[in-house]
């Protein structure tokens, strides 16, 4: 019973972290784009005159508007699939967070709780599996809408996602080769080591190329600019979710942002130490100079979760900056980048990593 409660609690924490980051993401999206484009940005909605820098507008007014709008279902659509599509597009992404660790161990009342919602032997593969499932939302939405633009968007979307999944998977394989495990928690723990006594041994140092490939492929998976061809409003109206309105439309929007957060979370976990705080061990800070700052276990865990959330925010912000900086690719450019750029690059990275690992037997970590 207690176990079930603990799992439920962990899941709740994860969902909270995701929702929090996502909310901040939405806010960043509006405000950062405004800064980039030298305008003020969302500032209209206010509660009792308090606009709170647009937070009210972005996190209260907009969602409310979406939720309260009429849910229009066009004639001659496949009603069941039309309904299922948004759910299928957001659900697998949310479920993926189950294997992302957000802290080390929490010691409460003699119990050590691993701060990872689901301890899975095949974590990395699970991530790939769930990301792959996300395709169905796009495909079904496009097909079920009985609309030319939707169908085209869906075709584009599915092709794009499948293409970039391959590069993503290969980047992940290089990481797996480096850490010799599929468990994300183990990977994060391995990144707690120090190189030459002072440099945190984060994954990006071992696998810079995999990081670049993974990040690029991740952005492509989220189907946002510069990879937003499935919806590209100038060509396909709104792509695969043209025929969606109200709450269903909100779910598609959400799935975009969840994907952004997911990519941020995975990049953090795999390449930037996850919940690791430099020099922070379970009993406090151990600085390279030899000085130590002992901390209680609870404080350490709190710092770790905080660090994780912070990193999450950083990479979410990075993706938003990228989204507002780059123009959209042409479809052939997109495919060429995926198949002729990232795929060979990640393959070469896997081969090179394998060679290095075989010659060094194991990484310095």
């Amino acid at each position, binding site marked *: 019973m207690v176990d079930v409660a603990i799992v439920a609690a962990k899941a709740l924490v994860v969902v909270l972290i995701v929702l929090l980051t996502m909310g901040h993401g939405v806010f960043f999206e509006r405000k950062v784009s405004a800064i980039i484009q030298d305008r003020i940005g969302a500032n209209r909605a206010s509660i009792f005159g308090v606009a709170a820098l647009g937070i009210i507008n972005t996190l209260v007014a907009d969602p409310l508007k979406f939720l309260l709008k009429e849910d229009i279902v066009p004639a001659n659509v*496949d009603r069941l*699939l039309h309904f299922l599509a948004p759910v299928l597009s957001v659900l697998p992404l949310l479920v993926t967070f189950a294997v992302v660790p957000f802290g080390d161990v929490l010691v409460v009342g003699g119990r050590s709780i691993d701060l990872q919602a689901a301890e*899975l*032997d*095949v974590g990395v*593969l*699970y991530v*790939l*599996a769930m990301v*792959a*499932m996300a*395709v*169905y939302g796009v*495909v*079904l939405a*496009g*097909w079920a809408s009985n609309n030319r633009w939707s*169908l085209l968007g*869906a*075709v584009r979307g*599915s*092709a794009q996602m*499948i293409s970039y*999944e391959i590069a993503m998977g290969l980047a992940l394989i290089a990481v797996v080769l480096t850490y010799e495990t*599929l468990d994300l928690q183990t990977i994060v723990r391995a990144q707690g080591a120090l190189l030459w006594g002072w440099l945190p041994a984060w994954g990006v140092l071992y696998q810079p190329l995999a990081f670049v490939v993974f990040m690029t492929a991740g952005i492509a998976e989220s189907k946002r600019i510069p990879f937003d061809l499935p919806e590209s409003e100038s060509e396909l109206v709104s792509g695969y979710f043209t025929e969606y309105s109200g709450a269903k439309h909100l779910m598609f929007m959400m799935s975009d942002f969840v994907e952004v957060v997911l990519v941020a979370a995975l990049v953090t976990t795999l390449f930037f130490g996850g919940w690791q705080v430099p020099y922070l061990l379970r009993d406090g800070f151990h600085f390279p100079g030899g000085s130590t700052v002992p901390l209680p276990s609870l404080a350490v865990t709190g710092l770790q979760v905080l660090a994780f959330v912070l990193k999450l925010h950083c990479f979410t912000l990075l993706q938003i900056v990228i989204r507002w900086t780059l123009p959209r690719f042409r479809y052939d450019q997109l495919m060429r980048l995926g198949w002729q750029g990232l795929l060979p690059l990640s393959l070469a990275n896997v081969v090179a990593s394998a060679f290095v690992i075989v010659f060094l037997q194991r990484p310095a970590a």
Partner: protein
Amino acid sequence: MNQLLFLVLAALTVLGALGVVLRTNPVHSALALVATLFLLSVLFVGLDAQLVAVLQIIVYAGAIVVLFLFVIMLLNLQTDVRVLGGGTLVAAALAGGLALAALLVAAVRGASPGPRGALPAGFGATVSLAHKLFTDYLLSFELTSILLLVAVVGAVALAQKKR
């Protein structure tokens, strides 16, 4: 696995399989297939085959069926007008299928449970499978890579538009 859970899953799986075969719309068939494969993967987890379960989702649900859907959409296939083949064929197939089902069930019902003893540690885990793959099955493993290469080349050559 709990028998009740199994029965529920099995019933759903059979429903999904029937959906694949009976739905007239190929997209529905494909979705029924995904559902079936997903349920099978759950059954695999129940049989202590975690890696196979995850691979099942990645390979089948994530790649193969998406490919099916992709092709269906590319060809813009709609609901089949005439679903079944010729009457003789259907009759013969039904008779044969029932006979095969009866035979298979008859053959299988008395299957001995086998030595069900304790499972070795790490059964179905990545490490144990990988070890098997790279020792006992190394040749087959390398051969599958050749198979995949040939398949890639063949698929590209076939699907390419003729110039």
